[in-house]
C-alpha cells in the first residue's frame, strides 16, 4: 500500500472504532429493546471474548493444533486455575506467562 492508501485505510479504521464502540450511543432517543434481546445480550460479551480468545489458544496458522506439546494450552490452564483460586487479573496473566515461558525455554515447545 502506498502512503495515501494507508492514510485512507487508517482513517477508516479509526472511524470504525468510533462507530462500533458508540453504536447504540449515537441516537439520543429512547430505545426499547424486546425482552428476549435483552436476555440474549447477557451472553454476547462473554461469547465475543471467548470467540477472540479460543482461536488464540488452540489454533496455529488457521488450523486447530494437533499436538499436546503446545505451551499455550498449559499457560491458559494455569491462568484459569489462578483466576478461580484468587480472582485477580494480574496473577492470571503472570501465572500463565510463567508457565508459557517455562515450557517454551525449558522444554522448547
Amino acid at each position, binding site marked *: *500500500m502506498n*502512503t495515501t*492508501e*494507508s*492514510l*485512507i*485505510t*487508517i*482513517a*477508516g*479504521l*479509526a472511524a*470504525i*472504532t*468510533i462507530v*462500533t*464502540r*458508540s*453504536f*447504540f*450511543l*449515537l441516537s*439520543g432517543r429512547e430505545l426499547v*429493546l424486546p425482552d*428476549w434481546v435483552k*436476555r*440474549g*445480550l*447477557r*451472553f*454476547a*460479551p*462473554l*461469547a*465475543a*471474548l*471467548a*470467540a*477472540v*480468545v*479460543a482461536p*488464540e*489458544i488452540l*489454533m496455529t496458522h*488457521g488450523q*486447530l493444533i494437533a499436538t499436546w506439546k503446545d*505451551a*499455550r494450552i498449559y499457560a491458559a490452564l494455569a*491462568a484459569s486455575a489462578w*483466576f478461580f483460586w484468587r*480472582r485477580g*487479573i*494480574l496473577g*492470571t*496473566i*503472570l501465572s*500463565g*506467562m510463567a508457565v*508459557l*515461558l517455562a515450557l517454551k525455554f525449558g522444554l522448547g515447545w
Partner: protein
Amino acid sequence: MPRLLATLQHPEFRRGVSDMSAASLGIAAWGLVTGVAMVKGGLSVPLALLMSLAVFAGSAQLAALPLMTAHAPVWVVWATAFCVNLRFVVFSAQWRPFFTRYPLAQRLAFGYFSGDLTYVMFMRRHREPQPGSGQLQYFAGATAINWLSWQLPSVAGILLVDSIPTHWGLGFAGVLALLGLALSLLSDRATALAATVAGAAAIAAFALPFRLNIVVAIAAAVCIGLMVDGGGDAGRRDRDALLRALQRRGHPAGGSAGERA
C-alpha cells in the same frame, strides 16, 4: 481545571485506576507486540504512530495489518475490522443507560475510549446507572490507565522495533488478560455453556472471510444461552420439547433440568 482536579481526587477515579492497573501488564505486553507488528508489517514509523493513536483497537489493528501488508482492497480491511469490532456494538447497548444523558460529542468520546477491559471492569463495579455515584470518575480512571498502558508500549514498540524479542510470545499476555476477563463473566451454567459454544464455533468457522467467525460465534452462543435460560417463546418451546423427549427415554438429565426450570 478545578473540575479536573476534583475528578482526579475522587475515590471512584482511584478505584478505576487501581482496577485497571491490575490488567495493565497484559495490556502493555499486547500493545508492545502490536507496535512491533505494525512496523514489521511494512508501515512507516509515522503511519504506525498514527494508526496506534487514532485506531486504538488492538485486535482490529492486528487483524487489519496482514491484509494491508498483502495489499488487500481497502473495503476488505474495513469489513474485517468491523467484524472484529462487532462485540463493541453489543457492549455499546449496555453502555447506553449510563451515558444517554450526555450530549452527542461526549457520548462519542465515551464510546471511542471504551475498550474490552473498561467495559468488563465498569459493569462489574457499577451494575445500574446512578448519577452522583462516581461512575463517570470510575470510567475516567479506568480509561486513563487503559489508554496509557496501551499507547506507551505501542509507541515504544514502533520506535524500538528491532530490539524487542517477539518470539518470546509476549503477545500471549494480552490473550491471558482477555481470558481472565472472560472467566470473570462466567456466572452460571448458561453462561458457561454459551462461552464454550462460542469458543468452539469461533474455531470451527475460522476459515470464513472478514473474521465472520466471531459473528457466527456470538450468534450461536446467544441462541444456546436463550434456549438454556428459558428465554424467548421459541427457545422455551424447543427446550420443553427436548426435556419431554429426554424424560420419555428415562434420561436422568430430563428430570433434574425440568425441576430446576
